[in-house]
Each structure stands twice: as C-alpha cells, then as structure tokens.
C-alpha cells in the first residue's frame, strides 16, 4: 500500500497520506486530479469497487471533505481519497461514468450538502426530500430543532393536574 501511494504521490500530488492499518489508507487529492486518479486506481491498480462516497462538513474550517472509498478485491485493501471543497458554490467533477452508483451518491450529496456535480444525470431531481425548500439539511449549520420551531406551529395543548381534573369532572359540586 505504502509503495503504491509513494508511486502515485508525485503524479497526482497526493497529500496527507495516513496509513490507518496495513489494509486501509487515507490520502488527499485535489479536485482537478480526482477523476484521473480514480480511473488509474480502478483500471491499473485493481481498486475496482467503489465502496462509498460521502461528505464530512468541517464547518469551522469552512470546507467540505468528500470521501471516496475504494476497495481492491485482489489485495483486500481499502484506499480512501479525500477531496476538499469550499462550503459555498462547491463543485466537484462527476464520476457517474466510472461507476453507475456514483450517480446516486452524487444525487444524495447534492441534495443533502448542496455540492454540484456538473453532468451527473438526474442531479436536480429530488431523491429523498420531495418538495423540500429549506437549506441542504445535512450541513452542520442546519439546526433541525430551530427549523422545526420556525416552520411548524406548536400544538395547542392544555395541561391538567390529574387529581384536580378528575375531581372537577366527577364531583363538580364538591
């Protein structure tokens, strides 16, 4: 794994290489070199399985970390690639041509974080949040409690002390 990363480091300007264990490593790549690196890993190095694609919101740094996790079925190794993009007008290249399920992941990330993937089919269609008009809800600055308090009215409820209430109902004369 270390050898592979050393070879790719120069070519794709990899940063922040971390070996968590012998079969799992993380590395950072720039958005411009992402598709090239993914294609090379898939076609030349046996990382054929896209395990998942997800996004971590580092609100305090003002950026999203999009993770692409690849698995090699021959060597049984996992390689996670991190791509950082700004939190406003964030845009990343689409990988739907490399893996069919990339389209679904990108649709979800667009809906939940507001990241734009130009060219990804069905990107603007709602996936989970039909008729949602709020901000992308998985962003860390979206507060679910505040949103519900602002959007939905409180149900009108009256509270009775059980003992007094039953007394009033059953024996109103007393």
């Amino acid at each position, binding site marked *: 794994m270390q050898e592979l990363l050393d070879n790719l480091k120069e070519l794709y300007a990899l940063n922040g290489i971390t070996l*968590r264990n012998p079969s799992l490593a993380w590395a950072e790549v720039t958005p411009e070199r992402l598709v090239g690196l993914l294609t090379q890993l898939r076609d030349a190095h046996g990382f*054929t399985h896209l*395990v998942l694609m997800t996004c971590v919101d580092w609100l305090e740094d003002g950026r999203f970390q999009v993770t692409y996790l690849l698995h090699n079925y021959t060597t*049984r190794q996992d390689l996670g690639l991190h791509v950082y993009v700004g939190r406003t007008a964030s845009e990343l290249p689409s990988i739907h041509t490399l893996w069919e*399920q990339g389209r679904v992941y990108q649709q979800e990330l667009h809906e939940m974080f507001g990241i734009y993937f130009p060219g990804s089919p069905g990107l603007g269609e709602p996936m989970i949040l039909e008729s949602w008009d709020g901000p992308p809800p998985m962003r*860390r600055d979206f507060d679910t409690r505040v949103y519900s308090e602002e959007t939905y009215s409180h149900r009108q409820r009256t509270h009775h002390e059980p003992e007094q209430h039953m007394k009033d109902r059953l024996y109103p004369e007393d």
Partner: protein
Amino acid sequence: MENLYPPIVDGKSVYDLDSQKYLKMWQGPQHPGVTGNMSLELDISGDQVVKCKAHVGYLHRGFEKLMERRRYINCFPIVCRICVPEPDTNEYLFAAAMEDLLGLDIPERAKWLRTLNLELSRLASFVMWLGGQSGAFGMGTVAQWCLAHRDYVLDLFEEWTGARIYHMYMTPGGVRGGLPEGWDAHAEKVLDGIYKLLDEIRHVMFNNAIFKQRAKGLGVITPDMFDRFGIVGPNVRGSGSTRDIRKDTPYLIYDQLDFEAVTEQGGDVYARAKVRWREVYQSIDLIRQILKNMPRKGPLHITLPNVLHLKVPAGETYVRAESTRGEYGYYMVSDGSEYPRKVTVRGPSYTHAMALLEHLAVGVNTADVAGLMVSLHTYPPEIER
C-alpha cells in the same frame, strides 16, 4: 416483433403517454410486491417494463444527522433501527468502528458471542427472505412457514438478550451477557426445525415448475456488472463469484470456523434464491460449530471509562461485515470530542435497489418485477439513513 422501446432523443427516451402505447404505473410505496417503503415508477408497454425509476424517501429518519448531535453511547440505540430484519450487523459495526478508533480489543468470549449473534440474525433474515421470495411468486404457504420459523429464532433472541427485534447486545467494549442456561438445547430444537423446513422448501419452491419457469433467466447479473454497479453478497455469489467478507477479510472469529463461500452459476433470480437457501444450511452449521467450540467462561466486557463522557481520539476508520445482503460498512470520523463528527452507513441496498434495479427491470414482465426486486434483497432504510 414490434419494437416496444420508446424512441431516444438527445440520449433520453421519449414517451407519448397519449398514444396509449405506454402506461405509467406505480408499484409502491404501499404494495405487497415492494420490499419496504419505497416505490417504483414503471413505464410499461403492454406487460413489459420499458423504464423503471426507484423512488425513496418514505422512510427517511435522518439517522446520520441524529448521530452528529448525540454522544457515542447515545447513538448506539439508534443504529440497530437502520435495518429491521437484521439489526445486529449495525450494532456490531458501530461498536467495532468505535473500538477501532479507541484502540480497544474485546475479550475472546465476547468475540464468539458476537459471531453467534450475527450468524443467528443472518439465519433469521435469510429465512424471512425465502418467505418473501416465494410470496412474490404467489406461493404464500412457504411465506407463512418461513415467518413462523423466523419467530422461533426471535424467541431465541428474546431468551438470550431480552429483546426480539432490536437486541442492543453488542455494546462497545464487549457484549451484555452470556447465554442463559438451557439455551443451547432450545437453539438446537429451532435449528432442527429450520433444517426440516429447508427440505420442504426444496420440494415446494425449488422443484416447482412455475417458480422455475418464472425465476430462471430473470434479472441476470453478469460478472462484468459486479464492479460497475457495486454489487456485493449473495447477488454476486449467484453469478459464480466467491466474494464473501467472512472468508476474505475475516473478522471476529470467522477464521476459526470451517466453511466455504456458497456460489451458484446462472446469475438469475433462481440462482440467487439457491444461494440464500444454501446459506441457511451454512448458517445452521456455523451456529452449531460456534456452540460446540465457544469458551463458556471468561470476561464478557472490558472496563471502559464513563461512556457518557468518552472522548474518542481524532481519526477516521471504515469497518465492514458480511450481512445477508452483502457488504455492510460503517465509516466513522471523530474530531476528538464526545460526539461523532460523521457516521456514514454503507448499506448494500444503496446500490442494489437504485442503480441496479433500474437497470435490471427494463424488459421484465410487470408481474415479475416484485420477484426481481425481492431477489436483490433490499431494505430501503439503508438507502435513506
């Protein structure tokens, strides 16, 4: 034969619904032929599907968002709810990801008990699936047998962990308790019953001429589709692959058990059903092996500091396990605080029920869509988390 498929303009198929040649039909969200709460938007011509679009979102509870605002141990009762028929994989993976970040190693006996728990939940899920698959092809009797036998497995869980569906048994650091007295005998009785049931299923389902005729050649998955669609688990093993995480990257004590990955040739619905039917035999065998060899004495849990104020070191990890549907994984990111920064659940249904089903359903008879969908073994909560 007349070309049923709509004309393609600018890379998109164009329908004229007014031509009365095509009909839009919704299968779901409330439909006996859909697994769980999702729906399929089918464009059909005659009896044939010309386009399928999967719609999810009926079951979105925002698990991943909820977990960002809860302490690690408070997340634990949430994760099992991501998959109702097989919640234990979620429990195990959440605990395993946490233990990996904390650098903990759990006692040997807890590993055996976790494996037993996982294998038993696989058994229950497979038995329920066999019922679902036969039900989707109109054999309701098998479905009722299977559900009854799954309930016997739930009885075992209840006796062991105190809960039938959500066991919350594999807590971070170990397991909650050992096996109660007399449990082995009860388990043996249930396993024996399922063993006999499998033979009946062979007669009624796999030797049934109608099932054979409908399931053979339906929804074929070819090896070139495995990685293109990210297909895992019994869905690839039905196409001749031997990929099985329990065998390839063993976790817990799977490396100490004697078993081989179950494979079938053909890649159609029939082959996938055969794989899962044989995997029930395998699960029964593995449970018997575990009960025979597991240590009966020893610690069940390591001592953790106050879990409500447990700070997990900054870092990120990914752990995986083989569920009944294939690779299930948890990606956990910690920023060093008491709350997880991000927990992403990688459910196998994410790819099977969306991109793959939309691809396989084209050209299928509308009556077979239900059988096809069940054969991929999908659970929608894994998609919308």
